[in-house]
């Protein structure tokens, strides 16, 4: 079994490949790393030339032509928006301007108001493969989808290259390529959202994708309340109900979207998870654990 570590999406990532010669495993993993890097660059809002930066820069101005992959991601974002009652909105990233986690300050409601006016996926104009943001300052951001999508494409690529046993782990979002060589499951640990050194559960995974959203990734604590990076696009305030939500789904992308929507739905999240039919493990603000039987 070979574990090939690399850095992507701002974190440590790994590709684990079993039952292949070492040289071959390394060469194939390199292709996977390249694929993860390709997606990261393509959808980074920090890189001036990326499709996301070009669409954002052209807000209130031109339409931007998108390739097939980007159009498919927009279609998916649309599904998420509709199925979450508008809570999962890829135009909500603009709230970052008010929520600067390095400054640890709760913004004034007045400073949120002009930003809230820039949010609304339903207002994004799509014509064929072209996209236009109608308002100056409006932004799209694939931050809530990109990492899990990359885990899926990397795993698919490795499978196409003949890998049958292994998994891809992009900063905790996992897509299994195939079970262990003996047919057994990979044991994936779920970390304690309040103690990163401790595992709170371990889940046997034969196939599919496992993703976790939590209030511990980027956050600050102030006056006894935690302000995390998952922000409700309607209120402009961070969600506060769940410490973490983990979902096992056929794809890492689906798992990731489910966890984020459950976080966003707060107290309604549990019903949403139950109805989704996916396997889940959720931990609320008091540390109570919920999972399917």
């Amino acid at each position: 079994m070979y574990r090939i570590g690399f850095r992507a999406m701002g974190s440590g990532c790994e590709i684990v490949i079993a039952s292949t010669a070492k040289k071959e495993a390394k060469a194939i993993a390199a292709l996977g790393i390249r694929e993860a890097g390709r997606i990261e660059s393509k959808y980074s809002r920090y890189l001036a030339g990326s499709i996301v930066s070009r669409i954002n820069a052209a807000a209130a101005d031109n339409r931007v032509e998108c390739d097939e992959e980007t159009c498919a991601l927009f279609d998916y974002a649309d599904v998420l928006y509709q199925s979450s009652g508008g809570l999962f909105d890829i135009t909500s990233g603009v709230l970052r301007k008010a929520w600067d986690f390095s400054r640890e300050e709760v913004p004034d409601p007045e400073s949120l108001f002009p930003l809230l006016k820039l949010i609304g996926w339903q207002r994004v104009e799509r014509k064929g493969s072209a996209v236009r943001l109608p308002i100056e300052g409006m932004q799209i951001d694939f931050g809530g989808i990109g990492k899990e999508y990359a885990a899926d494409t990397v795993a698919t690529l490795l499978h196409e290259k003949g890998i049958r046993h292994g998994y891809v782990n992009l900063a905790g979002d996992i897509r299994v390529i195939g079970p262990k060589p003996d047919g057994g499951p990979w044991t994936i640990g779920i970390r304690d959202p309040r103690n990163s050194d401790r595992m709170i559960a371990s889940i046997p995974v034969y196939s599919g994708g496992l993703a976790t959203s939590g209030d511990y990734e980027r956050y600050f604590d102030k006056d006894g309340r935690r302000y995390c990076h998952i922000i409700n696009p309607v209120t402009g305030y961070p969600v506060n109900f769940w410490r973490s939500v983990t979902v096992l789904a056929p794809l890492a992308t689906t798992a990731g979207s489910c966890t984020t929507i459950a976080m966003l739905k707060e107290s309604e999240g549990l019903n949403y998870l139950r109805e989704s039919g996916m396997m889940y493990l959720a931990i609320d603000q008091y540390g109570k654990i919920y999972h399917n039987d």
Partner: protein
Amino acid sequence: MAMVSTTKSTVFSALIASAAMLIPSAKSAYADAAPEQAIVGMKYLNYHDSQSGDTAQTAGMSRDRINVNALSFMGMVPIAGKWTVAATFIEDSITGASPAYHSSGFPSRTANHDASSGASGELRHAGDLTVTRYFSRGTLSLGTSYSQESDYISRGVSLNGTLSTEDKNTTLSLGTAYNSDTISLDKPAVVASKQRVAPGRKKVYSGLVGITRVLSKNDIVQLNFTYTDGQGYYSDPYKAPDVRPSHRNIYTVMTRWNHHFEDPDGTARLSYRYYSDTFGVRAHTFDAEYVQPLSNGWELTPMVRFHSQSAADFYVPVGAAELADPSTPTPPPPGAAFYSEDQRLSAFGAFSYGLKVSKDLGRSWLVDVKYEHYQQRYNWCINGHGDPGVANFNIRDIQLGISRKF
């Protein structure tokens, strides 16, 4: 080697420091009588740096980066036995390019292109003037400095004082300085996201408290604290992705021990400096040099230095995207407010060695030659985890100096 300053200011501070060492008051560790002789001196410096891709991750990254030729003139005149006026003037020209991120992203235009200013064969002029008053038990110095290049202007004032006890065995130093910098952001080479007509500004205040104690006739120890508070434009206009906080405090503690060996008549100078800033960089610098006078006016000074620093909190290490294709920088982590891929903010260790040879030619003439070699490696860091994606970095420094007393 200062870790977070630009290459250019590193070169300059080295030059100014070496020029200042010509001033007798700076040579002795404690306050002294005003010098009786005037000095004029000239130095030539050639600085050359390069990166070498010595590992699997950085293979193929070897290349030359920056070359600097600098000429400096200094003079110091005593006035009425109680005053000195010292001045330095420096002109340098810089060619070459530094990377826009990590060890990659060099400008595609080659010959004589300077990535750090966008001009070819960039010239820089700098000067400073210091007036010192000597008292029976101390000194007071007022200094001013100015440096200008096409895209950067820096102005500074400083006030420094020393006060010694009656027996002159203990000296207290106090200093304060103010610097105001103007950074042009309208040059064509400034990255698109940072282009704007209004220049960036930076204001930096600093203070120093130090104590020097003569322990015996052969031993002097010194302890210095400095505090620096800077506000303004800290991002690098020529680097992307690179957005830095607009505030930086720096704390340093420096200890020094000079020991004179009577028998060979040599002096060892040992120092250790701890550096900490609000960017998250922590650094340890160990310095050792030994000055050995020889017959016929020769003097040899070998030196070694080790520096190790941790990375800035917002340093983004080389990631998959850049590894796969070095023409693409590593995207900063999602949600990051500040980020930089400047290798000077990464964790690394650096080892330098050098030798200075000086010769007193008689009739008050002194010449010296100094050679210094600096090597920086990600895996030499002792207080952090280096970034294996950053190429090794090397500097070669040559100085020639001549001075005369009157």
